[in-house]
């Protein structure tokens, strides 16, 4: 049940950044915006410190709107229970790219360079997503070695999972949160961080198919998958 953490190299995806800042797939990117994304992507690697940390724990039980996880970790969410009742274990993780990129974006915004700040912010969003994908791949390899499979990621603050449950995620990581801390409102600092859970269970299709959105009534949610 020890917490694992590591640093990772990531590749920025220009196409995804274009989507983040509002372009659709088939739009011809202007030379101005294209060169801005290229320039900032080139320098972004100096501004990010991609780190991840995770722990794999046994699911003791899950029913109704509550799940008990090894180490007295209690998750309160019907949508989470729909996943964990299918799982033997759960990976609890946090990933981050550190604070320098968002500090730089904030300074650009204060200087009135909103376009530049928006592009750099989108690069940061893409970078932290890539770190989360890497951590997910790592957890997937561990599951596969035991003949198990993993679910999608799911984070507090979505569907019926209250953002206050970030405290349980951080408690499970027993202090090894790669420099990420919570505010009183349970927002993460640095902001370019992702926390959550990944279910680990038998390869019967249920865990891999799990989609929290299919249990959620918020049809207009911007994060709906």
């Amino acid at each position: 049940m020890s917490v694992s953490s590591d640093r990772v190299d990531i590749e920025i995806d220009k196409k995804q950044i274009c989507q983040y800042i509002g372009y659709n797939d088939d739009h011809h990117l202007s030379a101005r915006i294209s060169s801005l994304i290229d320039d900032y992507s080139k320098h972004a690697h100096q501004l990010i410190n991609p780190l991840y940390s995770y722990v794999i724990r046994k699911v003791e039980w899950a029913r109704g709107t509550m799940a008990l996880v090894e180490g007295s970790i209690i998750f309160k969410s019907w949508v989470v229970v729909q996943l964990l009742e299918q799982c033997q274990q759960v990976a609890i993780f946090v990933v981050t790219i550190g604070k320098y990129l968002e500090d730089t974006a904030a300074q650009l915004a204060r200087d009135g360079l909103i376009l530049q700040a928006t592009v750099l912010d989108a690069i940061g969003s893409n970078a932290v997503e890539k770190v989360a994908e890497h951590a997910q791949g790592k957890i997937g390899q561990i599951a596969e070695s035991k003949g198990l499979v993993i679910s999608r990621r799911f984070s507090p603050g979505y569907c019926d999972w209250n953002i206050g449950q970030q405290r349980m995620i951080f408690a499970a990581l027993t202090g090894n949160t790669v420099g990420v801390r919570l505010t009183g409102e349970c927002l993460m600092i640095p902001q370019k961080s992702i926390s959550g859970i990944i279910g680990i269970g038998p390869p019967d299709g249920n865990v891999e198919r799990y989609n929290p959105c299919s249990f959620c009534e918020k049809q207009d949610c911007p994060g709906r998958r």
Partner: protein
Amino acid sequence: MSEDIIGLIRENVIQGRITKDDEGMEEGMVGQPGVSELLDSALAAGLPIRDIITKGLSGGMDVVGQKFEAGEYFIPDMLASAEAVGAAMEVLQPRLASSGIDSKGTIIVATVKDDLHDIGKNIVSILLRGAGYIVKDLGNNIDTQVIVDAVRKDKPQVLGLSALLTSTMARMGDVIQALEESGLRDQVKVIVGGAPVSEEFARSIGADGYGADGFQAVAVVETLASGTQS
């Protein structure tokens, strides 16, 4: 000659180019003067500031707005153009009064206490600057009292409040309540926005307007600000 410079300002607003080092919508524009250099030339030539603003800057933004509505331009393209206009207006602002041009007014924007998100607010800020307003951006995670004090001091026509979280959106209602208790509510219109905010929520907390996105926010501000001008 003067029409040429103003026409070039208009064209470079459409291209979203602030300086000669910027690319435009198409490649190959680096090295040609941008809005900043053209503005210097226009002022040196003594061109009327009213023409620079109406025919050059606003004229360019009108075209950008049309291109956005037609799906030719996207949000970053609009931001580039608005930023070019904002940079020009910063230079022109001190000269407006002596040129007999009324300022469109002051807008204060802030993200409420305990909310750290500011990209949406920043986009609204630059679009408002592009529309010719003086924008005072207080930042994010701003105490209710700090917002009230800023309204008292700067006397804006409109206060824009932003929140991205369901847990912090209620603070926007707290600000409106605090403005009422301070006797300032009648002096300022309040517009709210952010991902979890809706028209219905805006009404429920007593806001005067709601912007679903940056462009709607600017349109609502235009309506509210014109209603508050004496």
